[in-house]
């Protein structure tokens, strides 16, 4: 294609340019722009409280709370994605992994032990791994396993529950099994690229970035803005929906169903879907429910929530097609319910 040729023949010295006056000017614009945003924020805060209707105010507070809570994890995920895509040598991760597909996916499920981000940060990271050469089913295995099989989640879950009732073990084993089963299922798909949104699939087919004479720093900044452009709108929409459901559905409706072995599992999965908290902290969230709800339902909450919830579906839609997400949701829900029922009836 014409543009690419032009790129390759472009003057190479451009890539070595340091801070030119034009760039410094733009950075100045950036600093002034952000400073004025701070100023606006400081001034408008003096105008309050606005006495909005309570429901609207709480909708806003809840949605902003989800955004603020997710933001650091999203940034961490994007930074790790930049690290993997731009700074790590191409074959570094790839070569270390086993070649046998099943073992390879099993190994990939444990990548979260070294890249400890929770689920919202994992979306940009999984996108980065896809671009870097993971197959769709492999990066999906990572996306599903990493929020559960990572040190922070394991520590917080252990702090909350210890080894009581097999909840921690069910969470880890269940998360690993579900991620690998889903990875295997989607690896059977004849056309892996068709699982991805066409926009993202096109991005994956793009040749490696920093071969084109852009500096690594430039590529990093570029990647940051592109991931931000994709993830932030999805995060905003997901948070607003999560907030809306919280304001609209009375909590008592959910809690009334807590002690039935089957219903409690389904209700907890519904709660996990609605509440959309990060896997790093969801154990603390669910701890107070542990005495009313059966252990299996808690395990189902802790397995299902990190993989599927309102916010996550909105984020994953940036990468996977709606059809893929529906299949994913149905299978993960069935398997999580199975984990819950096994714990309820066996443990």
């Amino acid at each position, binding site marked *: 294609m014409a543009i690419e040729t032009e790129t390759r023949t472009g003057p190479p010295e451009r890539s070595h340019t340091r801070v030119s006056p034009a760039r410094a000017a733009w950075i100045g614009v950036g600093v002034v722009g952000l400073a004025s945003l701070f100023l606006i924020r400081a001034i408008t805060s003096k105008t309050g409280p606005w006495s909005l209707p309570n429901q609207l105010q709480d909708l806003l507070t809840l949605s902003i709370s989800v955004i603020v809570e997710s933001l650091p994890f999203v940034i961490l995920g994007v930074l790790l994605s930049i690290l993997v895509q731009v700074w790590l040598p191409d074959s570094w991760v790839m070569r270390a992994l086993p070649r046998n597909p099943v073992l390879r996916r099993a190994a990939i499920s444990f990548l979260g032990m070294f890249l400890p981000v929770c689920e919202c940060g994992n979306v940009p990271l999984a996108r980065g791994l896809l671009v870097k050469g993971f197959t769709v089913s492999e990066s999906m295995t990572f996306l599903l396993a990493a929020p559960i099989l990572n040190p922070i989640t394991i520590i917080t879950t252990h702090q909350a529950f210890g080894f009581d009732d097999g909840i921690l073990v069910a969470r880890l084993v269940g998360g690993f099994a579900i991620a690998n089963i889903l990875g295997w299922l989607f690896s059977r798909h004849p056309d892996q690229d068709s699982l991805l949104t066409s926009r993202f699939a096109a991005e994956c087919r793009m040749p490696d970035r920093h071969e084109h004479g852009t500096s690594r720093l430039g590529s990093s*900044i570029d990647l940051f803005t592109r991931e931000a*452009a994709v993830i932030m709108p999805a995060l905003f929409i997901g948070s607003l929906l999560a907030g809306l459901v919280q304001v609209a559905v009375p909590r008592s409706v959910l809690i009334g169903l807590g002690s039935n072995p089957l219903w409690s599992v389904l209700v907890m999965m519904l709660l996990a879907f609605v509440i959309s908290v990060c896997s790093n902290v969801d154990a603390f969230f669910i701890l107070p429910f542990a005495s009313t709800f059966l252990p299996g339902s808690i395990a189902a909450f802790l397995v299902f929530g990190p993989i599927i919830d309102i916010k996550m579906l909105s984020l994953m839609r940036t990468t996977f097609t709606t059809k893929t997400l529906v299949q994913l949701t149905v299978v993960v829900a069935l398997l999580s319910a199975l984990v819950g029922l096994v714990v309820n009836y066996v443990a």
Partner: protein
Amino acid sequence: MSPRHRTRRDWRRWNGIALTAATIVATVWLATTNQLLLYIHPRYIVFTVIMAAFGLVFLVASFVPRSRHGHDHDHETQDEASASSGLRRWITASATIVTAAIALALVIVPPATLTSATADQREINSTNVLDTPQSADAVAPAGASERFTVRDWASLLRQTSDPVFYSGKPADVVGFVTPDPDDPENVFYVSRFIITCCAVDAQPIGVPVYLPDWTSSFHKDDWVQVTGGFETNPSAASAQPIALVPTSTKTVQQPDEPYLY
């Protein structure tokens, strides 16, 4: 690449930068004014601020226009080709408006705590968060009871409704007013939210206060300080066996840390 396509791509990029800027500016400002804990548990503040700082650096750098090299070769994909269909265009437009509205709210709406609407919706004292061991216990030394928080009292009230237990244990609590649904004229809760992670998981707790005709002096959501002692609840309509019967009730400023942990 077509100019139209380039415009659209540039627009998407600046949209992303704007949304990120709004979120990071709001977060950093909340942190500097110590209001981040209106939204998240204090244990995440340091992590949040560090990551926001990284974000700020990248944001400033992203104002530099992209070099003509690198990836000018975004493709006109099927997604975008079909984006011209009516429904898709409509969805994209409304999503843009909604996200812009949230970004605007992040920057201009003054931060606030959750209100009694959420306390009602989630039902005060409906969770078992109160069953976890608390500092307040039956053998606390004399006078210690005045330092008990709403959470301590709510937890005790859940354990025992024996009026003898509460005699000689004066209370002094701060919280916001939520009417008791069973007897809204005479009983209200001095209530607080307990946060384990962020405001999303806030669980309302409260201590019932028996104060006939309280609505003439206070409103729903007012922050009040109530002192008094616990007695058998004089209200026949209320479901609460024990209530705080105040010797003094006054409006106070919302505390710096409105949530309990």
